[in-house]
């Protein structure tokens, strides 16, 4: 059809901006070629819309009518104290800290200890120094996912984290992506996490903003994760960008045999957020545990999309996502579990639960099972409802005031997901942030 050829203003801008930007993007000739190829994929795909099955409930073409210019990196760097202040509870635990401001590495704000166990560098440096372009810049799904393609084309920087084999990091690696620009801009970042055999580590990605940053923004982030044989990685993402912008995230995770991968997502206060996770089991007897909680109100839109690909036998997957929706907010959960023909003895369980606090919010859920092996145990569940009045009544009959009773119940609801984070200091920080957001929302409601 002719209609498909029509490009929206944003699509045109995204395709055309490349010519003027190409010179500033890091990497040599090979990188430039790969970027151009990815841009070609984007050109063919266009922005995904509701007729694209994976984007049925998140119409990006409609949401992204305008493309914003790329961040220039001109905003002045904040002080260390300012960074700690915007991190809030996330600054309370000791960490190897690496900071990016508007998609550019800020070494002065970072706190890196080179101890041989972990090496952190910036993607831009790695590309300039002749790092493996395919490893750094290519990404699975670039041909079919426009957001991934855009990331490959435009990624400016990001953290490249290498954790040696047979080490256990005592401190998490904290990657901070800070929004500073006062103008509405687009940042595109690419992180790489590689953890060696039999090692253990925690990586936390935080997306926060400085008080002076613009309300509108675009952020496209992609993290490639490779978990080595027998390694254990706990991977946390806190998306707290406070604004009406669009945050698009992709995590592409490959697991070797006997690996253990735990992911947790906390999303609050983001205009439109889409967190996509693609997990591929490449070695047997691995385990994953994906969990998360999202808090959305006003007209916010939070989309969690998972694809768990059991390509080999004897792997275990667990997913638990909890959301709280208020006002006109919309929550989306799409969880697809694929069990390939030879992936016998697969054990997969998935649950998505949402609390709807306002009559006007909406939750769309699509838990999906695609199973080609017979010796498996797979299940999924999805529930959505408002707060149980019986529980509220029970609390009130014990002398707890209404507002407090509701807060208590909501907190305990999201708490179930947060408890999945194993490291206590990180878990407490996340719980504090969630509590803060819920209290702020409740207080604003009372004030209104």
């Amino acid at each position, binding site marked *: 059809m002719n209609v498909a050829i029509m490009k929206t203003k944003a699509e045109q801008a995204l395709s055309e901006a490349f010519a003027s930007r190409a010179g500033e993007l890091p990497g040599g000739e090979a990188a430039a070629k790969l970027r151009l190829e990815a841009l070609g994929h984007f050109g063919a795909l266009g922005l995904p819309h509701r007729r694209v099955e994976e984007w049925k409930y998140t119409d990006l073409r409609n949401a992204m009518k305008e493309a914003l210019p790329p961040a220039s990196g001109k905003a002045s760097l904040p002080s260390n104290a300012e960074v700690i202040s915007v991190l809030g509870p996330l600054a309370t635990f000791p960490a190897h800290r690496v900071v990016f401001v508007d998609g550019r590495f800020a070494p002065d704000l970072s706190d890196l200890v080179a101890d041989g166990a972990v090496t952190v560098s910036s993607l831009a440096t790695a590309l300039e120094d002749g790092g493996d372009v395919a490893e750094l810049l290519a990404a699975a799904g670039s041909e079919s996912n426009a957001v991934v393609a855009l990331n490959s084309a435009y990624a400016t920087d990001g953290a490249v984290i290498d954790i040696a084999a047979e080490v256990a990091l005592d401190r998490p690696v904290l990657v901070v992506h800070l929004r500073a620009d006062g103008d509405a801009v687009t940042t595109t970042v690419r992180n790489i996490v590689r953890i060696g055999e039999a090692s253990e580590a925690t990586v936390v990605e935080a997306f926060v903003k400085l008080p002076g940053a613009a309300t509108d923004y675009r952020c496209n982030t992609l993290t490639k994760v490779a978990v080595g044989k027998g390694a254990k990685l706990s991977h946390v993402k806190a998306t707290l960008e406070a604004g009406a912008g669009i945050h698009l995230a992709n995590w592409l995770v490959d697991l070797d045999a006997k690996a253990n991968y735990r992911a947790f997502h906390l999303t609050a206060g983001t205009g439109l957020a889409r967190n996509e996770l693609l997990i591929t089991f490449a070695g047997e007897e691995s385990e994953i545990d994906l969990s998360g909680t999202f808090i959305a109100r006003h007209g916010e839109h939070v989309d969690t999309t998972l694809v768990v690909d059991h390509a080999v036998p004897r792997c275990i997957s667990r997913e638990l996502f909890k959301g709280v*929706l208020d006002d006109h907010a919309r929550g989306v959960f799409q969880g697809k579990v694929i069990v390939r023909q030879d992936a016998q003895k697969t054990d997969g369980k998935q649950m998505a639960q*949402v609390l*709807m606090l306002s*009559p006007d919010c909406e939750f769309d*859920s699509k838990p*999906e*099972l695609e*199973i080609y092996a017979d*010796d498996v145990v797979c299940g999924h*569940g999805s529930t959505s409802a408002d707060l149980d009045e019986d529980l509220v009544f029970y609390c009130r009959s014990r002398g707890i005031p209404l507002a407090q009773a509701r807060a208590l119940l909501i907190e305990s609801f999201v708490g179930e997901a947060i408890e999945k984070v194993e490291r206590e200091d990180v878990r407490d920080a996340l719980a504090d942030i969630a509590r803060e957001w819920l209290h702020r929302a409740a207080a604003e409601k009372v004030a209104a």
Partner: protein
Amino acid sequence: MAAVQETIDQVRKIDVDQYKYGFETNIETVKAPKGLSEDIVRFISEKKGEPQWMLEWRLEAYRRWVNMTEPTWAKVNYPKIDFQDLYYYAAPKNAEGPKSLDEVDPELLATYAKLGIPLREQEVLAGVQGAKVAVDAVFDSVSVVTTFKDELAKAGVIFCSISEAVREHPELVQKYLGSVVPQADNFYAALNSAVFTDGSFVYVPEGVRCPMELSTYFRINEKQTGQFERTLIIADKGAYVSYLEGCTAPMRDEHQLHAAVVELIALDDAEIKYSTVQNWYPGDKQGKGGIYNFVTKRGDCRGRNSKISWTQVETGSAITWKYPSCILRGDNSCGEFYSIAVSNGWQQVDSGTKMIHLGKNTTSRIISKGIAAGFSQNTYRGLVSAHRKATGARNFTNCDSLLIGDRCGAHTVPYIEAKNSTAHFEHEATTSKISDDTLFYCRQRGLSEEEAVALVVNGFVRDVLQKLPMEFMAETQKLIGISLEGSVG
């Protein structure tokens, strides 16, 4: 693993060629020329002696269909259908109207006897069980025999073929036809609207509880004919009707297309129970032949406190593609969907339901049991949605799949859309094989492996079996047995 290895082996050995109902009846038929055009639509309409408005309605559907494209989103694969290479009308020559069973072509009666359609036997059975079943037997496209008409007429119930209804009750047909599934609803519904040849029409007047179960047996017989039934059931205020539909088809090499449309309308306080047992030819063991079953079934709970319940047992067809749905428009209305889908050989099933909550305090319940064996693909695809104004909506969904053999697939694709906070939706799905523990437990109680598997499968589908009318229970158990022959002993 070892415990069910034998079962798996036996499933592989299943000889689908032994399709019990594979035979042909040699009765002369009248055919329209191959292909589809406005002229064919006019031909069909003229053959059926339809009034002008009906022809216009068909033509409008045809014109919409011409501009539509075939849907491709279902998880099924099949070679492209050449819609110009099909016969759209075939009727037995002596269809002018037998007045009683005695006048019916004996060969036809013999066919039914082979199929086990209990035209007379049913009466005996009915006598024993105190229940009566009226059978509107459809042989290819024309309604041949209608029994129990008088008794139904006494109650004021209209049960006739849709072509008769067009002639005798045009006001009802005009009012309700296409009001649930509009002509251009989807590709196959549009095709059906243009060329439907026959089907059943039921109208149960206000306050009447239909005195017997209504039943239609469909049968596809003529080579290369697509059968396009159109069923319309209306339960007026406070009425109740239970409708049974059962299908078998003879063995055939070419793929056959079946695109039916079923519309149910329940007004205030009315209840419709629609049960289907579908056992069309699934193709041979190489996956050759078999029926394409692309059906649009939809019920509209138009009145307050109305209820529509779908129960289906799908064991046949090479490809099944259908989603019996409920539009819960009236306040406090209720929709139910109970399904057993058994697939074996190279069968492909993409089935499920849609529960669309529009009225206040509407409830729905979905119980779906899929059993996949051989090389088959069995998909549950369903939608549960609550409109902004559908306060107090409730849904419970449970879809379980059982896999027998490691070359089959079972998939679950539910869409759950809650657009208001007072809607309480629960969805759960599981997929597994028969657990070793369960088998071991049965075996240590002295059951053979085959008996144990049979016991577990029966238990697995029991929730749905129990929702079937008595008359179908025995037949259904038999059907599931035939479908899984070799795997459940």
